[in-house]
């Protein structure tokens, strides 16, 4: 018996060492991560700076605060692209234009009038507050060469990593693991064989196993055990069958592929856009509403591409820019002429949160009246690259929240009287939705 025990501990030891080895491998691998693409590129950009016009850093901050609404350095927006502007116009002309473009047009300057006409008579506001030095800085910033090459390169590698890099590393781990295990088995077998040979050679008598009743036979003979097992098996299968049926029609985690890869992470997360800016009907209507495309175009008229820093390991800048292009196709926006062609193609989003028709749910009740955060039901939406259904949307889930959540009564005249009377009746200060009748069947089913 002792030896048996010993043998056991050997195998356990081996297993442990294998696990140890494995975790070690992953650890080493984790340290090999490449330098993030963004960093490389920004370093490049910093290196490339160096112009005699002024301080591009100051220029960048001025540009972003004053000019970026209408201009982009390298492409047309509401106003012309500014890169190369110093070649077209001389400094003096530019300064006076920036200080007061309207006066310049009024004075009949042919160049000024030409620009004014070209951009559909959109007047550029005057910036008299900018000193000559400021203007130099801005021009220095916009005249920096476009950091094209590195961006493209990093984009390509990033995309390559996404498809190939991730796959290889996983397979590698598995391969190494398998190899190590096979080696261990071989070693074990060889050691055992050698030891036996030694034992036979040295005349050690190997213990012979006594044949007892097999365990299954003794199990069958023990009627009590059989009964208990049967009961347990029945209960367990009942539990799992129940569990299986209860998840039918529950689509928690449903994450369909959408026609446009719209990233809530970028919009709600990185850019901190308030949910109800786009989903405005959540305040007043039953539905939160998928924003119509004209809402997207409020911003995307001037945002035709994402910043370099928006790109992630999974999705490159090119990928996102293509998605914005899809929006332009749908709305019929022509970025070159900055106008709508009139050809629209509605986007057919795949609906994620599907309540059955017989269940009534009203967003405005929860968002405006109760002041519930969107994230309470929709989860960490600001972190979702692609939205998935966070909550189970089952009746139990609704009811539970109604039982636990206190009604937001402060400052709402509607509730005042009801609250006073009910809190007296129940002897509590705070009232849950359930106490106000939020559990009645007919409130949501009619």
């Amino acid at each position, binding site marked *: 018996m002792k030896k048996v025990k010993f043998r056991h501990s050997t195998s356990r030891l081996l297993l442990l060492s294998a696990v140890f080895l494995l975790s070690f491998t992953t650890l080493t691998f984790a340290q090999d991560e490449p330098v993030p693409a963004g960093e490389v590129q920004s370093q490049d950009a910093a290196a490339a700076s160096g112009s005699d016009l002024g301080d591009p850093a100051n220029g960048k901050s001025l540009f972003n605060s004053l000019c970026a609404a209408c201009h982009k350095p390298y492409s047309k927006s509401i106003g012309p692209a500014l890169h190369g502007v110093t070649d077209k116009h001389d400094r003096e002309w530019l300064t006076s234009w920036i200080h007061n473009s309207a006066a310049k047009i009024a004075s009949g300057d042919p160049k000024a009038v030409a620009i004014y006409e070209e951009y559909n008579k959109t007047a550029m506001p005057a910036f008299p507050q900018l000193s000559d030095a400021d203007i130099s800085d801005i021009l220095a910033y916009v005249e920096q060469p476009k950091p094209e090459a590195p961006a493209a390169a990093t984009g390509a590698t990033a995309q390559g990593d996404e498809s190939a890099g991730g796959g290889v590393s996983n397979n590698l781990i598995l391969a190494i693991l398998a190899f190590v295990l096979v080696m261990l088995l071989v070693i074990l077998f060889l050691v055992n064989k050698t030891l036996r040979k030694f034992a036979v050679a040295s005349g050690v008598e190997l213990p012979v196993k006594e044949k007892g009743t097999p365990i299954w036979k003794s199990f069958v003979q023990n009627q009590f055990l059989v009964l208990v097992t049967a009961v347990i098996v029945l209960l367990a299968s009942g539990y799992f069958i129940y569990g299986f049926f209860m998840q*039918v*029609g529950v*689509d928690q985690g*449903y994450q*369909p592929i959408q026609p446009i890869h719209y990233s809530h992470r970028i919009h709600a997360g990185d850019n901190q856009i308030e949910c109800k800016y786009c989903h405005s*009907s959540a305040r*007043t*209507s*039953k*539905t939160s*509403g*998928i*924003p*119509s*495309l*004209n*809402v997207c175009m409020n911003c995307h008229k001037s945002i035709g591409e994402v910043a370099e820093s928006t790109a992630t390991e999974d999705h490159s800048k090119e990928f996102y820019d293509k998605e914005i292009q899809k929006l332009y196709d*749908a*709305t019929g926006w022509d970025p070159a002429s900055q106008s709508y062609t009139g050809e*629209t*193609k*509605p*986007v*057919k*989003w*795949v*609906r994620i949160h*599907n309540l*059955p*028709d*017989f*269940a*009534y749910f*009203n967003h*405005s*009740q929860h968002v*405006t*009246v109760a002041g519930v955060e969107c994230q309470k039901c929709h989860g960490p939406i600001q972190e979702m690259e692609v939205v998935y259904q966070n909550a189970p949307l089952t009746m139990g889930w609704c009811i539970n929240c109604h039982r636990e959540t206190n009604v937001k009564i402060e*400052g*709402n*005249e*509607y*509730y*005042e*009287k*009801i609250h006073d*009377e*009910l809190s007296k*009746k129940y002897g509590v200060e705070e009232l849950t939705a359930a106490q*106000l*009748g939020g559990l*009645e*069947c*007919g*409130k949501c*089913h*009619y």
Partner: protein
Amino acid sequence: MSSNKKYWKSVEELKENSSIVEALQQNEFAEEIPNDEFLGDKDSLSTSSTTRRDFLKYVGFSTAAASLAACEGPVIKSIPYVVQPERIVPGVANYYATTIADGFDFTSVLVKTREGRPVKIDNNVISTSRGGANARVNASVLSLYDSKRVKRPMVKGQNVSWEEFDKQVGGALQNASGEILLVTQTFASPSTSKLINDFSSKYPNVRHVVYDAVSEDAALNAFQAKYGVRALANYDFSKAETIVSVGADFLGDWHGGGFDAGYAKSRVPKNGKMSRHIQFEANMSLSGANADKRVPSTPSQQRAVLAGLYGYIVGGSSTSKLPAYIDDAVVKAAAQLRKAGSKAVVVTGLPDTDAQTLVLAINEALNSQVIDTANPRMIRQGDAAAVGKLVADLKSGNVGAVMFAGVNPAYSLPDAKEFSEALKNIEVSIAFSMKEDETAKLCKYVAATPHYLESWGDIQFTKNNFSLMQPTIRPLFDTRQFQECLLKWSGNDTSYYEYIKQTWNATLASGAWNEALHDGVFEGTSPAVSESAATGSLVDASTAARNLSANAENKGMELTLYTKVSMGDGQQANNPWLQEMPDPITRASWDNYLTISKADADALDLVNENVADGALNGSYVNVKMDGVVVENVPVIIQPGQAKGSVGLALGYGKKEAVQKEMQVGVNAYPLYKNLTSVQNVSIEKASGVHEFACVQLQNTLMGRGDIIKETTLEIFNTKDKHEWNKVPEVSLNHMETPVTSPEVDLWESFDREVGHHFNLSIDLNACTGCGACVIACHSENNVPVVGKEEVRKSRDMHWLRIDRYYSSQDSFTGDVEKKEAIAGLSSSLSEFGELERPSDNPEVVFQPVMCQHCNHAPCETVCPVAATSHGRQGQNQMIYNRCVGTRYCANNCPYKVRRFNWFNYAKNDEFDYHMNNDLGRMVLNPDVTVRSRGVMEKCSMCMQKTQKTILDAKRDGRVIEDGEFHTACSAACDKGAMVFGDVNDKSAKIVKEKEDKRMYHLLESVGTKPNVMYQTKIRNTSEV
């Protein structure tokens, strides 16, 4: 003990040596089973490629595939606007004020639209000049989504573009030799009148004929002769103390309808006073049913009545040859009228200029404040004389082109056949039509016109009251308004919208225009010159009286043609809501029929009988009139029908552009000679039995005074409430205790002190039975249409029904007395049977019944799955997704208000109504579930509406004011018969109703404690 009895299964067995019996004894089947034919044919078996194994494989595979596919949830697409219109928020309703003006119904309404599509018609409460929306107007939203609509212009049955159409029609009109005849409905539109004048100046040979399918010509002529305007006198019955109607169904469609709201106001006892209403009529009409005293009299007797009334009030000879009881009633009515003086009014519906002249004279003599001749109604303009000549005109060869707008003469003219023949010979015929109806079918050019919910317009209700029509949806099809076409063809490039604005630019300056459009109605004076110029010669009233009494001879059976509140003139025949709406009087749906008195029916051997399943069957008759025969008209024996008279509704029997299922009834227009609603006919029995779809089988109350409580004004004023509105009592420890007392209560009561507690009060005095609420409920709650066959099986789905009861004695009080007096077996055997039969001239009462929302609901306690439960706000909630369809609740409901979905009524070809096509489904209310097969449903007290009101208040952070809460029925009732509100709001009107001494609950003795209450019916029976 064996019996010698021989049980035989057919008559054959009685014959000895019958070969059939012999054969059947030998063989189990009468014919050989063709086993060999099938299995013996080796060839076909071997050539069949499907072996048994294959078959099993296929079965197994398809089962597995089906079950696997079922695990996948469907992918639902969600498509937002590309550019969202500013005012449309998905999920939030928008309301627009507009006006229906289809030539028959003229009402300002409020249209509820969701996501840009109209789903419901509501009353425009700002509009005071006209009554609210009736049943037809409520249902008109469904006619917008009629799948039978014409979708684009057509030339000789071929679809063309509007450019092509304009080119062809323009050329045809230019080249037309002879008159251009323009036959239109009454538009009552100043802009359209102006436009037709413009058109006439472009084409000088245009002649305009206004044609009302159901004519008010006599009244128009009389009014025009007396007051110089072709219009109808307006009446405000709320001011009336005594109303005498001689054959005028002024609660129906008389003079364009809409008088019922004012009438209802005068009928609710206030300070011990209410109006007295005396009705002389042949058919049992809504007005007769609501009258305090109804005198059945044939149309010829009515003439004498009117002449008599004139004699008693104004003076002159009264040579009445009337039966004593009518004469007596006339004398009393005249006394009553004289007593009420300027608060009295006489109206008549006789299609006779003399009669109408006389009424104007009587009202003038009474100095009646009820009648308004200064601000008359402009909503009927039809000229029967011109229409009468129409066929002759078409035949004469002088007509080069004819245009029809909003009318369907090939269906609704009495001589429609001749008309159709004549029309075929006209070179240029143009129909402006929404449907490819009888007339449009015959016309070369069919201009597809939009529904009123897609159109612009201005309407002149009365001389000073106007309203605007505005589109509430983009045109569904490639349609163009009649007016747009006229503009185009008269070479005017402005849109009709601009044209209307130009018409009104003097009255409605920019700001006022928007305000008028928002309100829907405004006051002013018409900027257009009235078209009608000809004035008839004024007939002296006394001459008229003489003429009338001279014409008061009875000539055989007198037919009075009438219009039903559901079908009107028949324009909306393809509207399943209206077809399924039961007639308020006969309670029969999906039909029209000849109403006949019991005595006449017995004489002609005509029967009505209830067959085994309770459904009503009736005999057929042929109705003959000067060579015109209308065959196989079903008969309903109508209590209260004057002996010697019959009634038949117009608007049925339409075949073109009407779905097969809705081609019901007989066309009565061939009997509408000279557009006169009273005709002499002869009737003979025809063979066959007609199957009615009648929803009410029990006509009397059998003396059960606790279902409908009613009393007289005298008792109401003088006696204690206990006498006439007693709370039922039960015996508790040998003490009589009222059922409302908590001591006799079996149940613990909910505490409903806090929050809202909804109650609905129904005033039986104000309810005229018009049925607007029935359709409003239908439309709000997605109630399915089940069709005639199912209604016949009592499977109608109406959440709200209006029960109509006749008294078996002269009055309901008489019924109760008779029942109380029954003692012993023999008397109960005979007299209960008698109580089942309505009296010849019964009292009538209407009672709207929906779920009573009992606080102690019998349905709730028996549901095995708790699918119906009680809410704190008083509603009895029905949870469809929980219901398993045991129908136990319906069995336990004492009010029979629960409806079971025997089938899937949506998307089911067996029920091919609006819910079975994409267009029709657009009318569904997105806030209410469409129920599926196997679940129970019932009135929810419009939970979706109360919830919406509460949520709006919560969002605004304010307290809800009284009058904000509404159900679909209470909002639809312009008579104020239904009051809905929160009884926990002490200032609410409903609290006053609840404390009113007239208040009672339906079947109070059962102890269900309903949240719906009724107000005792009071009749003003006091004679002068």
